[in-house]
């Protein structure tokens, strides 16, 4: 008996439409020639992009967000990779405890983290600045880095390290010439994910930024007043920047490792989950 497939197919198509149509509409209106948001868009133009790139507040927000994303990625990847090594390579009770502890921020409501950071800043008399923005982002992104890198380290054939030792390499040489190159795609992927999370984080940033405005905060402040068509252009940028970066990363990994994208971050995340 042939099983009917159309109910499942219809459901899948509806779900995809539900996810992507709003995105498509935003992108379409980002390139809209007219100045109101009525359907259909009137002609294609870059006027909204010109408008926002001419706006100092937007440019400053973009600069702040990019700086925070890069700094967060760099710090989270160093701390997270070191932590992943400790967890996987020294599997004692403290390490297990530490691993569970390091997953906690993923499960905590961002609102709670934000309030906690505000309380901490008050207690220690720290003023909001770029540093506090980065600190908040590092807290929420490091668990992802640990998850991805630890998963790669667990799915990794230890005998290649033994072979390197056997061929005269010291433990430090093994780390530099064998282990790190082999897990580099996972580390890089983890960093890209950390940057992407940081780039559009808004909840915690709201509490830690003070007068500094990141790009997502800039969008929010715009929307608070009116629905401004230029917001669509900003949203398009927010959407495309992470996609382009992640896409390029996947391409690079595929070229680097031949046919199979060894340690593609998505794969690692799926395995770790």
């Amino acid at each position, binding site marked *: 008996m042939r099983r009917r497939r159309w109910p499942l197919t219809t459901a899948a198509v509806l779900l995809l439409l539900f996810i992507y149509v709003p995105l498509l509409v935003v992108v379409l209106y980002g390139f809209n020639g007219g100045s109101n948001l009525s359907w259909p868009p009137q002609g294609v133009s870059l006027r909204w992009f010109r408008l926002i790139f001419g706006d100092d507040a937007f440019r400053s927000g973009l600069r702040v967000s990019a700086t925070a994303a890069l700094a967060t990625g760099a710090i989270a990847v160093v701390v997270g990779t070191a932590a992943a090594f400790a967890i996987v390579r020294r599997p004692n009770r403290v390490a297990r405890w530490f691993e569970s502890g390091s997953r906690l921020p993923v499960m905590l409501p961002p609102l709670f983290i934000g309030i906690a950071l505000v309380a901490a800043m008050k207690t220690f008399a720290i003023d909001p600045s770029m540093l506090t923005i980065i600190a908040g982002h590092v807290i929420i992104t490091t668990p992802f880095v640990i998850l991805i890198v630890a998963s790669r380290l667990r799915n990794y*054939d230890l*005998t290649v390290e*033994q*072979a390197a*030792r*056997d*061929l005269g390499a010291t433990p430090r040489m093994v780390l530099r010439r064998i282990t790190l190159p*082999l897990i580099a795609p996972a580390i890089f992927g983890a960093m890209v994910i950390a940057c992407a999370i940081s780039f559009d984080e808004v909840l915690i940033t709201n509490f830690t930024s003070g007068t500094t405005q990141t790009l997502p905060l800039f969008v929010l402040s715009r929307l608070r007043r009116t629905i401004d068509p230029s917001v669509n252009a900003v949203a398009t940028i927010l959407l495309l920047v992470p996609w382009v970066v992640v896409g390029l990363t996947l391409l690079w990994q595929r070229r680097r490792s031949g046919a199979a994208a060894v340690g593609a971050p998505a794969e690692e995340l799926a395995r770790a989950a």
Partner: protein
Amino acid sequence: MTPTGAVGIRGIAKRYGEVTALHALDLDIPAGSFFSLLGPSGCGKTTLLKIVAGLEVPDEGTVAADGVDITSRPPERRPFNMVFQHYALFPHLSVADNVGFGLTTAPKRERPSDAERGTRVAQMLDLVGLAHLGARYPSELSGGQAQRVAVARALINRPSVLLLDEPLSALDRNVRFALREELLRIHQELGTTFVFVTHDQDEALSISQLVGVMNEGRLEQVADPQTIYRSPATLFTARFIGAGSFFVGTVRSVGAGRADVEVAGRRFSAADAGVVVGAAQVLLRPEELEAVAAGSGSLDGTVEACSFFGSYFELLTTTKVGPCRLRVREPVAPGARLGIAWPDRAGIAYPGGATGEVGAVRA
């Protein structure tokens, strides 16, 4: 010049929690020999090899290379190199860089120049017949090629001992046979000591000069392959090496290395493997047994199964003293009755009177 590469193992013991992997083991591996450690999986042979390589630390005992104690040296400072079961090639390096890796790990001043490294890598790839594959990556190699690269990589530092951890077990039968012969050729060409771990008795017997049979963390016997096959010292070795039939018999008298035994009413002289007068287990090899007309041999049997092995058929028969294996040239239908005969001097008598058992089928 006397050959180098003698390995001396004294009282090596290793425990993993409650489990004892090695019981205070002594072993001398002569310089330049092709030595096999043979045993079932879990017998401790790989643990012993890793202790020799320095990849595992023994709880007790010492390892010496040409008389020098190296027990406390890390693997990178031992004159030994290892070939791993699953190759363990560096996936991010080309074949040439894999093979040359061992030449790039010395302190900067002692490191060979790039030119010398190139020459030696080429020599090694030549030795294993892969001169044309230097630019490939490990993921582009077949299993046989990968293991050849692993051998070349392990030999480039001119180790005095090459340690091989079941290097052929992951390969197809034909590749395995070709690589086995190639290992023999390389051993003869270089004169390096080869310590070869395997669970395959045919492999061990066909290529080694000396075989050490291991069981549950102990050495059962160390001898040349012919002695191992013809006079297994213990019941375990006898069972593990090749097919044979074990009959419960009675020892009437013992003397001069022979035991006068009685099996199924037939008295004959078997080699003595430490028996005393009384019950014993007698091993009869398939090649000692002859199929004759029913009633005219020492024992009658009913054919249960007849398996084709190319140059012979192996019959599994049931007799009144237990199952019995023998070889014939022509197939025999299951259910047929036949007689089993053997000469007056045959078999080996082992202590113990447990039920008769048949040795493993030889693959």
